[in-house]
């Protein structure tokens, strides 16, 4: 027991009965040596293989093609190929997944002499790999689905959002207008809104507001607000906001409190003088900015009304202002003035707005809105809330 003889192994036997298949071929692939393990796997007698079959003959047709197009050229180029997955064709037609590694033996002058190949049974590994692959396909499918859902949702939201805004701005005689809406996130409906429309042959109404919150519930309030204000436009601005207040309060007072802020106004243009008379009321909304042609700018802090929809009845005092040629009036939501700047420490704020507006005094609503849109676009992902902009102006030279 202790002399070691029974425990000894020989290189020959270790090769022949190894737990892996071994074979050597000449450079043209003809098999010159093969171990018993591999013969067992193949189910072939030694004399049917040695000197009769080439290595690719042991493979399935797919494996043969792979061998010729990948394995053999690689082996020629690199002198070795490691861990390639192929399938062994067994006597009787069964297939056995294997992992193949080959190395070329060279003579002293660097001439290739023969190829030594080791083959591992890859049943277990193949099952594992297939499972991995299956999981990956499932994950890919799920990711695909999620991306599609997300794109569909964004499309739907974009359409809904657009439906809450005028498709195009109407032509108002003697008045230049421009508007813009900036969405903070394509994944969420914003609550800002604006509109501009004719009341009768002479008067036009405009409004810009902001519903508290975001998402579908806010969008529903936006829709109510827009159509209520449109319907109430024949009244004066104070009455229009009063009507909206009553509607929102009645509808949402029960539990889900919903309110909004808005500026509602009417304008009437005198085509002879070029002057435009504006009468507006505000309910809790940031003050409109008056930009005179000569550069004087002021926020029109009117005696402010309360938030719209909070109290059963509220008063919304009116302000009257006249625009001369070259003057502009800017309405905006707090998405602009409360956008974060300086790494989130500060708001963009009314002062920055005032400074920019002064630079654009005497230009046009288009130029002003374009400049502000650039500012908003510059905020990028830091724009946390939607922002609506509406500018009304009298062209510097009266429209003939």
């Amino acid at each position: 027991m202790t002399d070691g003889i029974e425990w000894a192994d020989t290189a020959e036997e270790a090769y022949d009965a190894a737990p892996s298949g071994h074979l050597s071929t000449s450079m043209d692939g003809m098999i010159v040596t093969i171990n018993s393990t591999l013969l067992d796997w193949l189910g072939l007698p030694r004399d049917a293989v040695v000197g009769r079959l080439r290595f690719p003959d042991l493979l399935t047709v797919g494996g043969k093609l792979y061998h010729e197009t990948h394995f053999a050229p690689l082996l020629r180029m690199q002198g070795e190929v490691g861990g390639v997955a192929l399938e062994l064709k067994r006597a009787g037609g069964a297939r056995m997944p294997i992992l193949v590694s080959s190395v070329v033996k060279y003579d002293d002058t660097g001439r290739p002499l023969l190829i030594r190949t080791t083959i591992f049974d890859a049943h277990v590994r193949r099952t594992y790999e297939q499972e991995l692959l299956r999981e990956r396909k499932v994950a890919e499918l799920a990711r695909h689905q999620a991306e599609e859902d997300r794109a569909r949702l964004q499309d739907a939201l974009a359409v809904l959002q657009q439906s809450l805004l005028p498709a195009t701005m109407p032509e108002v005689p003697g008045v230049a207008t421009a508007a813009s809406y900036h969405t903070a996130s394509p994944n969420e409906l914003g609550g800002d809104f604006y509109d501009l429309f004719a009341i009768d042959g002479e008067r036009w109404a405009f409004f810009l507001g902001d519903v508290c919150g975001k998402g579908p519930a806010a969008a529903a309030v936006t829709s109510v607000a827009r159509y209520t204000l449109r319907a109430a436009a024949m009244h004066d601005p104070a009455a229009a906001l009063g009507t909206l207040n009553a509607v929102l309060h009645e509808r949402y007072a029960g539990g889900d409190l919903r309110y909004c802020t808005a500026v509602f106004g009417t304008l009437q243009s005198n085509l002879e003088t070029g002057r435009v008379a504006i009468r507006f009321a505000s309910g809790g909304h940031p003050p409109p900015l008056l930009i005179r042609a000569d550069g004087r700018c002021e926020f029109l802090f009117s005696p402010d009304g309360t938030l719209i929809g909070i109290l059963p009845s509220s008063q919304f005092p009116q302000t009257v202002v006249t625009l001369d040629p070259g003057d502009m009036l800017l309405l905006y939501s707090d998405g602009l003035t409360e956008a974060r700047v300086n790494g989130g420490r500060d708001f963009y704020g009314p002062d920055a707005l005032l400074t920019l507006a002064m630079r654009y005094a005497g230009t046009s609503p288009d130029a002003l809105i374009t400049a502000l849109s650039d500012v908003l676009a510059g905020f990028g992902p830091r724009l946390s809330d939607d922002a609506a902009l509406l500018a009304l102006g009298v062209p510097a030279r009266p429209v003939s």
Partner: protein
Amino acid sequence: MDIVRRNNVVVTGNPDGRAVVLAHGFGCDQNMWRLTVPALAPDHRVVLFDYVGSGRSDLSAFDELRYSSLAGYAEDVLEVCAALDLTDAVFVGHSVSAMIGVLAAQKAPERIGALVMVAPSPCYVDDGDYHGGFSVEDIDELLSSLESNYLGWSAAMAPVIMGTPDRPELGEELTNSFCATDPVMARVFARTTFLSDSRADLATVRVPTLILESAQDVIAPRQVGAYVRATVQGSTLVTLDATGHCPHLSAPEATNQAIADFLAHLR
């Protein structure tokens, strides 16, 4: 578009010599020609490239539709020729590339003045009297093997399976990197290659043509070489004492000699 970058075009050899374009087949990339280039370089301007989807080509330029027909690969060839302003070049194509060269010569005869076909096959599938060497079932097996990613998994698939295609250095580390193409693109190339039938195109060849075949080649057997010889007018067939589908690697001296003899007799 920068074609030179897209197709990883490498120009070497004698700038004053006649241009010889070396085109790899399905499998690896321009590295397949490493034993051919030294023989050609002294007297020829040697052009190497990788088809989009192979080797070090710009994989972002891959377009499944374009590369689902050999004509798409022929476009690659002609765009490379145009980028280098080649005229009357000798096109050396391995395997399916021999047919791609036929299509390119058909479309732009001024670009290609001679063809060398290394182990060509115009059709891999048996069809009536024609013996391509494979049945439709055989090809289906190869394609389904490729599709289920069995073959060459360890070599080519590892980075993809590991979900780190954005870390190309993992691919670089693989010893089998010359052939480690993107498996999706390899599948498209395989399908296009093995389901192609360019037999009708062979008869259109009007340029001097050399056909090289291995004595033993399961992919392009002797009958196929004889068919190509009989179909291409005035072509020469040389059977190399070589085994396998890549005589330019397994018998480089004989392959180089045959190409050199052919080039010497052109004009």
